[in-house]
C-alpha cells in the first residue's frame, strides 16, 4: 500500500503529469473567463449605459453565458458554398489555441505557473502573431467582400502595432536583462514603486511605455476603439461575417482569451505580477486583482469611445507610437550603459 502510494506520488510529481494538469487548469481558467468576461462585458455595458444588463437567466444574469453558449451550440455550423472549407474551419481554432498556449508561461503566483521557461516572453510574442493570421485566413477563406476588406485591415493594423509593442518589450528586456517572466516579476518585489510601471529612475518614460503597451494590446486584440476587423457599422461583422454558431462562438471566446493574455502580460511586465503593494493576501489574489482591473479598463474603453478611423489608427502607430517607443528604447539603452561607462 505504502509502496503504491509512493509510486503514485512519484508519478504525480513527474514533469509530464504536472504539465497536463497545468494545461487542463489553463483550459478551464480560460474557458470560464471567456464565458464570464462576456457577462462582465454585457453587465458593464449595461451599467455604463444606465440600464441593468442581463437579469433574466439566473441571479443577476449569471447564467447568461451558459444560455448563450447553448444557443450557439444548437445552431448549424454553416459553411457557405465556394469557401475554402479547411481554412474556414481551422481559422477559429487557430485564433483560440495561441492564447491558450501562451498562458502556460504566465506566472500567476510564485509557484503557480504552467511552465517556467527562459524564453517565455519571446514565446508569447511568437504565438501572438498567429492570431492575426487566423483572422486573416478566416476572412479570406469565407469569400465575402466585407470579410476580405476586414482581413486586409487586420494585417496592416497588426503589422503597425506589433512594432511599437515589440520596441516597448525590448526596452523592458534591456532593463530587466531577462525574458523569463518569473524573473521579471521577481525583480519587481517590494513596494509598488518597484513595479516596472513606476521605475522612473531606470527610465523616466516608464509610464509612457506602459501606455504604449496598453494601446498596442488593445489594437492587437482588435478591441474598441481599434476594432477595425469587426467594425459592425461598416463591415457588418468583418472577418466573422460568414461564421455561424460555435464557429463565431470560438472567435468570440478567443477575443476574450486574448484580452486575458494581454492583461496578464501587462500585469507581469509592468504591475509587479503577484507582488502585493501592502503585503497581505496571497500573491495569486493580487495577480488577479491587477489583471481584472485592466480587463475592466478594456471594457470601459469599449463602451465609452467611438471607433477610430483606419488611417487615424495607422497614423497613431507610425507617427506617434513608433517614434516614442524608439526614443524610450534609446533612452533606456543610454541609462543602462552610461553609469557603467562613467562608473568604470
Amino acid at each position: 500500500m505504502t509502496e503504491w502510494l509512493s509510486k503514485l506520488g512519484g508519478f504525480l510529481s513527474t514533469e509530464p503529469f504536472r504539465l497536463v494538469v497545468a494545461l487542463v487548469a489553463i483550459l478551464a481558467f480560460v474557458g470560464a473567463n471567456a464565458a464570464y468576461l462576456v457577462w462582465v462585458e454585457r453587465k458593464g455595458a449595461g451599467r455604463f449605459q444606465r440600464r441593468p444588463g442581463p437579469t433574466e437567466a439566473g441571479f443577476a444574469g449569471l447564467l447568461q453565458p451558459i444560455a448563450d453558449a447553448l444557443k450557439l451550440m444548437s445552431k448549424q455550423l454553416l459553411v457557405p458554398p465556394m469557401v475554402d472549407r479547411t481554412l474556414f474551419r481551422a481559422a477559429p481554432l487557430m485564433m483560440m489555441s495561441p492564447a491558450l498556449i501562451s498562458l502556460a508561461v504566465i506566472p500567476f503566483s510564485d509557484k503557480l505557473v504552467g511552465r517556467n521557461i527562459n524564453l517565455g516572453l519571446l514565446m508569447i510574442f511568437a504565438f501572438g502573431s498567429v492570431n492575426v493570421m487566423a483572422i486573416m485566413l478566416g476572412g479570406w477563406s469565407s469569400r465575402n467582400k466585407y470579410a476580405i476588406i476586414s482581413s486586409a485591415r487586420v494585417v496592416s493594423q497588426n503589422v503597425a502595432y506589433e512594432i511599437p509593442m515589440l520596441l516597448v518589450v525590448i526596452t523592458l528586456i534591456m532593463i530587466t536583462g531577462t525574458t523569463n517572466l518569473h524573473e521579471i516579476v521577481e525583480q519587481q518585489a517590494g513596494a509598488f514603486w518597484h513595479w516596472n510601471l513606476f521605475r522612473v529612475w531606470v527610465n523616466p518614460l516608464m509610464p509612457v511605455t506602459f501606455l504604449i503597451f496598453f494601446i498596442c494590446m488593445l489594437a492587437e486584440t482588435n478591441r474598441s476603439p481599434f476594432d477595425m476587423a469587426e467594425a459592425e457599422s461598416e463591415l457588418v461583422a468583418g472577418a466573422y461575417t460568414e461564421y455561424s454558431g460555435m464557429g463565431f462562438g470560438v472567435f468570440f471566446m478567443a477575443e476574450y482569451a486574448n484580452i486575458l493574455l494581454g492583461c496578464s502580460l501587462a500585469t507581469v511586465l509592468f504591475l509587479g505580477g503577484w507582488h502585493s503593494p501592502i503585503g497581505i493576501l496571497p500573491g495569486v489574489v493580487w495577480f488577479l486583482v491587477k489583471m481584472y482591473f485592466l480587463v475592466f479598463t478594456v471594457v470601459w474603453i469599449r463602451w465609452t469611445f467611438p471607433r477610430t478611423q483606419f488611417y487615424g489608427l495607422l497614423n497613431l502607430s507610425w507617427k506617434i507610437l513608433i517614434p516614442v517607443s524608439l526614443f524610450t528604447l534609446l533612452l533606456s539603452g543610454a541609462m543602462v550603459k552610461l553609469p557603467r561607462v562613467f562608473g568604470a
Partner: protein
Amino acid sequence: MVKEAPSSRAAGRETFVLNLGPQHPATHGVLRVRLTMDGEYLVEAEPVCGYIHRMQEKMGENRTYAQFLPNTSRIDYLSAMMYTHAFVGVVERAARIQVPPRAEYIRVITSELNRISSHLVWWGAFLLDLGGFTPLLYAFDDRERILDLLEGLTGARLTYCYYRFGGVCNDVDESFLRGTRAFVTHMRPRLKMYRDLVTGNIIFQKRLKGIGPISAEMCRRYGATGPVIRGAGVAYDVRRAEPYSAYPDFDFEIPTYPECDSLARYMVRMAELEQSLRIIEQALDRFPDGPVMAEKVPRVLKLPAGDFCYAVEAARGRFLVRLVSDGKDGAYRLKLRTPSLSNLSLFGEASQGMLLPDALAMMGSLDLVIPDIDR
C-alpha cells in the same frame, strides 16, 4: 483627411462592386447603395431606392383628405408631427380655414418636441455608425420622456395623427404643460453632458473634421435642405424663409456652420436642439387661451379647384406638400417633396474617392430616414 485615393489612377480597372444593403447596419433601414470600390475607396456610389415604396402619393389621390391624413405620419416616422402639419396646412390654406392661436401654439410645441426626439434618435444612431454604442442609450433615455409626453397628449408614441384640419384634436392638459416645462429644464444639462461626452472627444472630432464636404453649391444642385444646407453655411430654414403657423411669434436663431463637413452638420443639429428648447419655452410662457379647433370645418371637406402648396421645416429639411384639387373630396394630384430623397441623391457625388468608413460617417450625418426616401 484623404482627398484622392492614391491608387485612383488605376480606378475603373481594378474595382469591385460592393452591395451596401438592403440589409446593412449603417443604412438604418432597407436602403441599398451599389458601391464600386477600389480597395476601400469609393469610386462610385449609386443609391438604389424603392425597397419600401408604398405609393403614398397615389394613396393620397384615391382617398379623401381625412382618410389620407394618418398616412402622412408614416412617411418620416421620426418627425410625424411636422409631416401632418404640412398636410393639414395645405388643406387649411386651400379651404381658407382660420386656425385658432392656441391650436397653433400647441402645434409649435408638439412639433418642436418631435424635432428634439428626432434629433436625439439621429444623434444616437450617428454615434452608432461611428462605433460608439453608449450614446444611443443616453439619447433614448431622454427621447423616452418626449414620447411619454406626446403619448399622453395624442395617444400614439410615434405615428401621431394629432393635428386636424382646423386645429388639433384635443386640448392640452395641465400634466402635459408641466411635463414639458420639466423636460426643458431637464434637457439643458443633458445637452451639456452630450457635449462633454461626445462632441469634445478627440476620436470623434478627428473622424468628422473635414470629412464629407458638401458645399452650398452642391446643396443647391440637389435641393438639399435642413441641417445639410445649414452645415454648408446657408441660413435657410422654412420657419423663417416661408413663415407658417405661429413661428413668426418666436425668437430663435438659425444655427449655421460654414465648414461644410460632417462635423458642421453635427454641430447644426446639436445647436438646433438648444433652439427648439428655446421655442418651446417661449411658447409655454405666452400660451394663449381659447378654442383649439376652428369653427365650422365641414365634415366632408371639399377643396376649391386649384393648385396649393405648403412647406414646413421638418427635422431633416424642407417638406412640401403640393396638392392639386379639382373640387372633389380628395386630391386630384398630390406631390410630397421629402428632404431625405434630396439629401440622399447628393451622396453619390459627395462620396467619390472617400474611404468606406468616412462615406458611412457622411451618410450618417445626412440623417436619412428610408421611408422618407421611398414614401
